[in-house]
């Protein structure tokens, strides 16, 4: 086996040192009736690199890669171009094969990177402090709800979800709340050109610990965070803003700037890639430093070493479960270190200038696409405003149309029918995302295909 360095003669020599007659003598504590002897049944014997690579390539080729299609999917995961140097850097053995930086003297590479990452996320979100990443946007969203509960010390048990929150995020919150006895108030979104901010505000009451609103929302619209924040704060509730497309924040005001108390989101757009849904990168930030000790997840902080040199350490870990056990602020242990690095590197390559241009390029192409698609008979653009994703209303069941277009290598978007199963009022909705990777030909291809299928 190419991954196992011991030779048979090593093994005998080592058994001699140990004083054991054979390997099985080391497994004496495993009850004999349960111990397996001989190779594992049913599994093939070890395989060469070539054999494994061929097998996996065969499976890979059974998927339609985004680059091989006219591609318009979004809904919380976006296809962006990732510079080649990002992957080069995350494959450096010193980053790839390092552990959690518990020994800071020999982990400054990871720690400084995390400190830079935290700063980038905090600034992007318009917040004071960000943590060192979480699993993904949906779990970060739940952690934010749980944090708001902690801050409310159990005195407020109601969580108000915007209807236009990503349905998977809402589902995660609902699932977890089942076990913590929080009450979740939510409803499917209504197909209006602007988000129903007034309706959301109307649901906030004195028992509300937090309000969760997505920006841009699941239909691509832009809710008025400032207004909702004001209303929430009036009733003593925290506003949690959720963002699933960080590139948007290169073009629009940050949620923190607009008054959100906790800002969470998915960081996948920057550096991480599609990867069929994971690993992704949960971003988590608080607008006000006073909430820091209530935050979940790891935090990296600046300090000095014995000689007074600047250095970085994991800090405030008394909040973490491996120390606090049942009093921890979250269940998270592993975070998304390597994805945070990818985000950090890609964001460094972009810089403010690059991020703004990237955002404007996304928006420009999305506007062109919306205008073009609106010209197709049977197609209506729902949104008044949007960033790089908008909702089409089709004369027909969007889900069936998406399936049909797949056969022409067009991945036309995400149907609202798939996102909100069982909501008959939404079945004609199709969520279309456009990024810098979308060409005008792609848009033409989609328009022509829609024209044909809707005729």
């Amino acid at each position, binding site marked *: 086996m190419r991954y196992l360095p*011991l030779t048979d003669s*090593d093994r005998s020599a*080592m058994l001699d040192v*140990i004083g*054991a007659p054979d*390997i099985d003598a*080391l*497994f004496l504590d495993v009850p004999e009736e349960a*111990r397996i002897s001989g190779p*594992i049944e049913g599994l093939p*014997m070890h*395989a060469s*690199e070539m054999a*494994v690579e061929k097998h*996996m390539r065969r499976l*890979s*080729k*059974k*998927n339609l890669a*985004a680059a091989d299609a006219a591609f318009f999917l979004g809904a919380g*995961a976006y296809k962006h171009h990732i510079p080649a140097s990002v992957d080069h850097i995350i494959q450096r053995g010193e980053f*790839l094969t390092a*552990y959690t930086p518990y020994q800071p003297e*020999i982990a400054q590479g990871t720690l*400084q990177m995390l400190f830079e990452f935290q700063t980038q996320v905090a600034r992007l979100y318009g917040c004071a*402090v960000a943590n060192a990443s979480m*699993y993904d946007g*949906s779990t970060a969203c739940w952690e934010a709800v749980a944090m708001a509960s902690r801050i409310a010390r159990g005195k407020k048990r109601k969580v108000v979800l915007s209807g236009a929150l990503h349905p998977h995020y809402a589902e995660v919150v609902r699932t977890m709340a089942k076990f913590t006895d929080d009450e979740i108030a939510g409803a499917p979104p209504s197909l209006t050109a602007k988000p129903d901010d007034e309706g959301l505000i109307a649901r906030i009451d004195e028992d509300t610990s937090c309000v969760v609103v997505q920006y841009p929302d699941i239909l691509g619209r*832009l809710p008025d965070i400032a207004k909702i924040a004001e209303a929430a704060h009036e009733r003593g509730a925290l506003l949690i803003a959720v963002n699933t497309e960080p590139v948007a924040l290169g073009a*629009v005001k940050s949620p923190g700037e607009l008054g959100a108390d906790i800002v969470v989101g998915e960081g996948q757009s920057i550096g991480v890639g599609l990867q*069929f*849904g*994971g*690993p992704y990168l949960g971003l988590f930030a608080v607008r006000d430093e006073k909430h820091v000790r209530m935050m979940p997840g790891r935090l990296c902080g*600046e300090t000095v*070493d*014995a000689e007074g040199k600047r250095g*970085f350490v994991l800090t405030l870990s008394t909040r973490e479960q491996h120390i606090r056990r049942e*009093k921890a602020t*979250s*269940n998270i*242990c*592993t975070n*998304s270190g390597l*994805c945070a690095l990818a985000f950090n590197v890609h964001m460094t*390559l*972009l*810089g403010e*200038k*690059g991020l703004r241009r990237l955002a*404007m*390029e996304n928006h*420009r192409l999305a506007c062109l696409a*919306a205008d073009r698609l609106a010209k197709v008979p049977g197609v209506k653009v729902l949104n*008044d*405003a949007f960033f790089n994703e908008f909702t089409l209303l089709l004369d027909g069941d969007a889900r069936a149309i998406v399936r049909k277009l*797949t056969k022409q290598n067009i*991945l036309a978007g995400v149907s609202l029918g798939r996102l909100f199963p069982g909501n008959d009022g939404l079945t004609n909705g199709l969520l279309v995302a456009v990024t810098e*990777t*979308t060409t005008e030909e792609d848009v033409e291809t989609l328009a022509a295909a829609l024209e044909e299928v809707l005729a």
Partner: protein
Amino acid sequence: LEEPLLFEIGHIETTGVDFDFAGKLDLAGVEQPQPPSPAPSSRLGGFERTEPIGLPGLSEPETVRHYTRLSRQNYAIDLGLFPLGSCTMKHNPRLNEKIARMPGFADVHPLQPVDTVRGALEVINELAFWLIHLTGMHGVAMSPKAGAHGELCGILCIRAALEARGDAREVILVPESAHGTNPATAAFAGYKVEDIPATPEGRVDLEALKARLGPDVAGVMITNPNTCGLFERDMKAISDAVHEAGGFVYCDGANFNAIVGKVRPGDLGVDAMHINLHKTFSTPHGGGGPGSGPVVLSEALSPFGPLPYTARTGDGVVHLVEEEDAESFAKEHFGGPLQHFGRMTAFHGQMGMFTRALSYILSHGADGLKQVAEDAVLNANYVLRSLDGVLDAPFGPSGPCMHEALFSDKGFADGLSTLDLAKALIDEGYHPMTMYFPLVVHGAMLVEPTETESKAALDQFIVALRSVAERAKAGDESLRTAPHYAPRRRLDETLAARRPMLAWNDPDLA
């Protein structure tokens, strides 16, 4: 060499990316590309950014150099032995990195129509098959994003199963030697946590456990092999007792590396166990993640696993089952309602880790995986016995250890601690072992060499460890200020916690 922060060397006006054409470059020698279509007026609804964000950029040459230099301040498995007990720092095969980057895995959207992602679903299902097979269980929940998330998933399954039979139990029992995540998880799921003591030989006290079992106990969370590096010999008896009392058995699978191919937790009565793909199945730790924590489930718990999941039907097709069709699918194929407890995350889990773990399993195969456990245990025992008479091994008399060797600070000169020894080990060129864990041993040092270390590498490590141990016993004061040769001397963690500086602030603006 010191590397400044990005914020100290970058500029708001610098960027390492170009945006010039919408992906078109038509050459045939001489044609100029068309200028991009003019931008329509913005439709951002009045939310346009007006203020600077504060994100400096670097050109590509500066970026590559910044991170290359930063990386060199890290220790990593690629540089040397990484004896962190309970963390299983084994070699990460490079083939798996290559496979994870195949376009059919890396460049696929989670919400593509299922007909365009059949291969991805097959990967998930094939990995699920082997995880079930290797553990002797009945089902598996693939979506948990890491070990702790998997623990939570397992406990939620238990809670859902109990609720389904209308049995509201309130207590989870956790032995002293459990991972710190276990009580945190149980508390998060709304349970009261009670400790169970360990015997002097380092195992769960079966009688104490039995004595505590009762109608209020939802289950026990047990780590096997346990954190003292020992196999819980009475595992089957524990399971039987818990089951008899109406509870469930959760097993922390972080240490599965020691027993894969040697014994199947399912045969010992386990109801749920998470598997850290980044430990036993060697997906890279990456400086703290991403992880992946599938949870294998017994027949009793399988119906309660979370959505989404994959299932291969008789016709060979792998299905993706989500909220929409969970009910109908269960009815049609499993002959009953599926009582899933909900969704733990958006999308389907850590695909990028699944491809790597599956490649790992296929590469090792029936003989290799078994060898993994055997060599891991052999290496740990070799370290344990090679330090006889040098470091105190409190459970050494209990017999062979599993894949990690546990030592205490007994015999250290006054004032010198496990921490000092660990930091001195850095100067010898090694990452320290796990310290002060498990709590049942004073000044604990938990060494896990893993199976991917050669005998020569172990011998070198043993020499280094012996040397620092002897210096600790002789009272060498220089240990107290170690490390001396690392990129940093000891860092002031108290200061960091007392006055948290968690983001960079421009000193010129302060």
